[in-house]
């Protein structure tokens, strides 16, 4: 029972982290109708900025805040310099161009920081495990990821659902031309949305940095999961991204945790322990396939266009 609580927390933490990545991606993909493969590069840049700024300032919190700002600025600059010229183009052109950006960022990072990767050490107050219920100790840092991600999700929800900017964003998602015709500066809106998406990716990257190593290409594996999540949740839907991210995080973690034991009931121990990780990573794609068949628009689609 206690193990189940702990594994659920692991799943929740992983899911929330995926949500931060997927939320930014779905904002850009759903609202601007722009396929941005380089979203994972922004996640990587967030982590590199954090490792660098924390080392410079010698303060974890200050370094993280600086890194968040830097990723936001990088996102805005990227949109301004390169991506805004691609909005009118075919999705295939966007895929090609942003794939080029992945290569560019990977080599830029290699040039600036070298190939070996960086580490982002945690401050002492975040390293000790905390007791959440009697008998269950959970790493403080993973707990703080859960708290931060939930806060960001709530904030994002409020901004998108309750503010004027959010209204424009939602309107832009439904009908771009109309909102342009109403005299809204759609270019500026897009730049802001892209910047917000970049900052969310950067936040996911820098929060992941102390758990993983900061390394070249770190965004590529996880980006696939982010795309799976927005397909499951429904393109352009923040709520869908949230629900789907939690689903995927839970399925992945609980699958890895309990599938081997379940399989051991029917298979030999050796076969079960090799088959289980393969099967649990397939479960997510299986879920995506089922969702695509049953509800091609995703589980929680954004308002109709």
């Amino acid at each position: 029972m206690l193990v189940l609580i702990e594994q659920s927390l692991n799943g929740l933490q992983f899911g929330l982290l995926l949500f931060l990545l997927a939320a930014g991606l779905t904002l850009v993909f759903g609202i601007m109708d722009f396929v941005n493969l380089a979203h994972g590069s922004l996640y990587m840049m967030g982590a590199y900025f954090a490792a660098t700024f924390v080392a410079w300032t010698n303060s974890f919190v200050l370094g993280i805040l600086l890194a968040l700002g830097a990723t936001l600025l990088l996102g805005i600059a990227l949109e301004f310099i390169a991506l805004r010229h691609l909005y009118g183009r075919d999705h295939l052109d966007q895929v090609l161009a942003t794939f080029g950006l992945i290569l560019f960022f990977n080599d830029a990072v290699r040039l600036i920081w070298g190939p070996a990767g960086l580490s982002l050490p945690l401050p002492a107050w975040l390293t000790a495990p905390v007791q959440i219920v009697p008998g269950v100790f959970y790493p403080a840092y993973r707990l703080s990821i859960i708290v931060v991600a939930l806060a960001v999700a709530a904030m994002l929800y409020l901004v998108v659902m309750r503010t004027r900017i959010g209204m424009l964003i939602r309107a832009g998602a439904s009908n771009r031309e109309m909102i342009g015709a109403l005299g809204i500066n759609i270019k500026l809106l897009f730049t802001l949305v892209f910047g917000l998406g970049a900052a969310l990716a950067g936040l996911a990257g820098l929060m992941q940095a102390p758990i993983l190593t900061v390394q070249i290409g770190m965004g590529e594996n996880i980006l696939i999961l982010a795309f799976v999540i927005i397909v499951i949740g429904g393109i352009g839907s923040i709520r869908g991204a949230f629900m789907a991210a939690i689903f995927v995080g839970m399925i992945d973690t609980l699958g890895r945790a309990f599938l081997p034991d379940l399989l051991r009931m029917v298979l030999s121990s050796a076969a079960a322990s090799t088959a289980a990780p393969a099967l649990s990573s397939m479960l997510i794609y299986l879920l995506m396939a089922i969702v695509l068949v049953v509800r091609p628009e995703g589980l929680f689609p954004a308002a109709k266009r």
Partner: protein
Amino acid sequence: MKKAFWLAGAAILALAQPASAGDTIKIGFVSTFSGPTAVIGNDMRNSFELALDHLGRKIAGKPVEVIYEDDGQKPDVGKQKTEKLIQSDKVDFIVGYIWSNVLLASLKTAVDAKTFLISANAGPSQLAGELCSPYVFSTSWQNDQTPQAVGTYMNQKGVKSVFLIGPNYAAGKDMLAGVKSTFKGQVVGEEYTVWPSQLDFSAELTKAKNSKAESIFVFYPGAAGVQFLNQYAQAGIKAQIPLYTAFTIDELSLPLQKENALGVPGAQQWVNDLPNAENKKFVEDYRKKYTGLRPTFYGAQSYDAANLINSAVVAVKGDTSKKDEMKAEMEKANFKSVRGPFKYGNNHIPIQNFYLQDVVKDADGQLALKTVATIVKDDQDRFHDKCPMKK
């Protein structure tokens, strides 16, 4: 018309390449030079280049040409690059291979073409057993050997039970099987993770913690090892269950692992401080040539591979068409290995010592690996009986 023009151009270019017959020694080098594990490939290349420097960049009086190819840690890419090196570059030797799955995918190409392949790292059990070949040599080990040494060490320490964690691919399975073959205590759990995409080990660590095992054994090469140690320390398990490793802590990962690596024992056939003249020269010159970097066991194995090739080509006075003679010479292991004692078993896998290594601060105040003791002497892999080549 246009197509014909390009085809003609390509044909001329292909013809214009110098015929390779005999004037240079051509070596193909397949390793990972891009992505997160490129640091390992870099180290192998650095050490190989250093060995060529030490040989005066000539073997048996002939200039050496090395063609480096990047496998991107993918078996299919490794196979393509191997085919390209053998079929269009017509190399005399092919060296490298960090990953067991990449090597296994590429092996048949080399063996069918009767091109000598020297694995400078990967040591899948199949290579030592049923897939052994007269054309394949190793300058590293068979995967199981290092974890077997760790298992032996755990017996010496009186450890009663262990929880095993490793990646779900050829080498991961060999490594965990290796520990199980020598460890006399109880194996309470065994977890495999998706390789190389899974980076978060929270589910596995939670299971290990709750298994009440007395120890954890883990195998994660490259950056994954850094991540594992981070998460192991953050989850507070470090204070409860001691960790034993193979190939998880090395000179490349140590600068990132820092304090997390202190007190985590491992085994290796080569450590930077092994007290033989060849090794001292290798380590010193490496640090001189590549300032700020330290050689690793990956590099030491590549360095040995260059010297093994040198011994074979010198024995036939540069005539690389005399394959049988080169094979006979390589079987003698007629070169000074930086790891000290080195000879070949019937399956062309080294028979060698394995040392206990520990993490300490060295003279420069940096963390470094240190040889503590010899765990096993002249160890031969446990698959050599399955190899059809008998002596």
